[in-house]
């Protein structure tokens, strides 16, 4: 920034702050809580009716039932997460299937990849991501959190987990990924939030660098 920072008269940081600054993106603070943020009521889909779909731009798709999904190879990532509302939480432990594995399985069954994906969810939420942000070991469909089933208010039965982007990209109640040739903004991306959402570049809102 070219501007001199405006010093808030009399503002002193808490002396107890013991945060590893290198783990904390700009403008974030560490919390030990796990705040809940969502735009509407929490959807509750029975596992018997839950499925996960990967669909290509031509409508070809692969679908897993909950039981089928549970047979896929699992990862147990431990990651830091960063919410655009300023909180960050370090060392969260998840269990889920990597998006790499899901896409590979879909491609082996004739689904064509694309440069962008749109995550779609129970309740109608969507978010858009470049393919390169959900491949290469960077994203999962997570159904376990801290050794237990992911609670509904945190996105259970399953949510997307894309920890290197602000957490609204980690869509709760996710039901599938749609490949797309173009980048079409999702729910928050149409409502003033940044299209990409990299916390290390503080891409919170539209117009941010």
């Amino acid at each position, binding site marked *: 920034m070219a501007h001199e920072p405006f010093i808030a008269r009399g503002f002193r940081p808490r002396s107890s*702050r013991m945060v590893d600054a290198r783990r904390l993106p700009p403008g974030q603070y560490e*919390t030990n809580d796990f705040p*809940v943020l969502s735009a509407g*009521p929490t959807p509750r889909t029975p596992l018997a009716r839950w499925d996960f779909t990967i669909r290509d731009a031509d409508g070809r798709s692969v679908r897993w039932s909950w039981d089928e999904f549970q047979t896929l190879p699992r990862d147990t990532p431990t990651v830091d997460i960063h919410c655009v509302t300023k909180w960050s939480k370090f060392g969260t432990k998840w269990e889920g299937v990597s998006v790499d594995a899901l896409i590979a399985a879909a491609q082996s069954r004739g689904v064509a990849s694309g440069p962008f994906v749109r995550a779609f969810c129970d309740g109608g939420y969507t978010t858009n991501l470049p393919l390169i942000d959900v491949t290469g070991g960077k994203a999962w469909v997570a159904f376990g959190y801290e050794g237990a089933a992911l609670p509904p208010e945190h996105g259970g039965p399953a949510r997307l987990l894309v920890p290197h982007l602000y957490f609204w990209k980690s869509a709760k109640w996710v039901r599938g990924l749609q490949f797309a040739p173009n980048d079409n903004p999702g*729910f928050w991306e149409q409502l003033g939030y940044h299209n990409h959402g990299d916390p290390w570049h503080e891409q919170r*809102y539209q117009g941010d660098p």
Partner: protein
Amino acid sequence: MSSDIKAIPEAAVPARLEWHVARVLDVLNETPRARTLVLDVPQWPGHRAGQHVDVRLVAEDGYQAQRSYSIASPPEDRTVSLTVERLDDGEVSPYLVDELRRGDGLEIRGPIGGYFVWDVAVGGPLLLVAGGSGIVPLMAMLRRRARADASARAAVPVRVLYSARTPDDAIYRAELEQLTDPPLVEVAFTFTRSAPPTWTGYRRRIDRTMLESVIWPPSAGPHAFVCGPTVLVESVASLLVELGHAASRVRTERFGPTG
């Protein structure tokens, strides 16, 4: 699910939200723990009722802290008011509530948020359910409605259910009582921790029975806005859906326990 949340696309891509140094014109004590900061914000682009701003505090040593606060004032005011409740283990709210005074500067940028918003054009009826400082963005909606013309007000009957710990903790209590104008504006309080013996209203957490007796029935098709601590919002939003309200008509904003 048969009901979906739908984004309302903005007509134009907004420009970057720049940081501005607002001037504190006035400080109003709302409750022992909450204050309203009346701000003069240079180049304020206007806002919609329900939106919030980001506040940034920079210390002498360069350390900075950011938080989000809801706007309490209606769009037609020339100033922007934020009502902040002190969280004792917080870092920013104690500064805003205890330290900041008239004449100080405060860095803010906004407005932010395009879903938890209401304007006269959206119409009614309105159903506003708040817990604690969750009343703040709902107050902006009530104030917006109160400043509309009589026909617009008649088209938007509103019912408010506000849960606070005690009467003294209820922010804007006098203004809410003054706005009450049955059957167009009905306001119900519930005090969850204590209330004087003379209080004849509710004294418990919001539950299904309370909601059923206070709120609009689903057939009235209200637009519901629910704001407060996570536990309250989760409970109320789920109950509204159970009672038959369309999930797409229930908009929520949840306050984490941080500050």
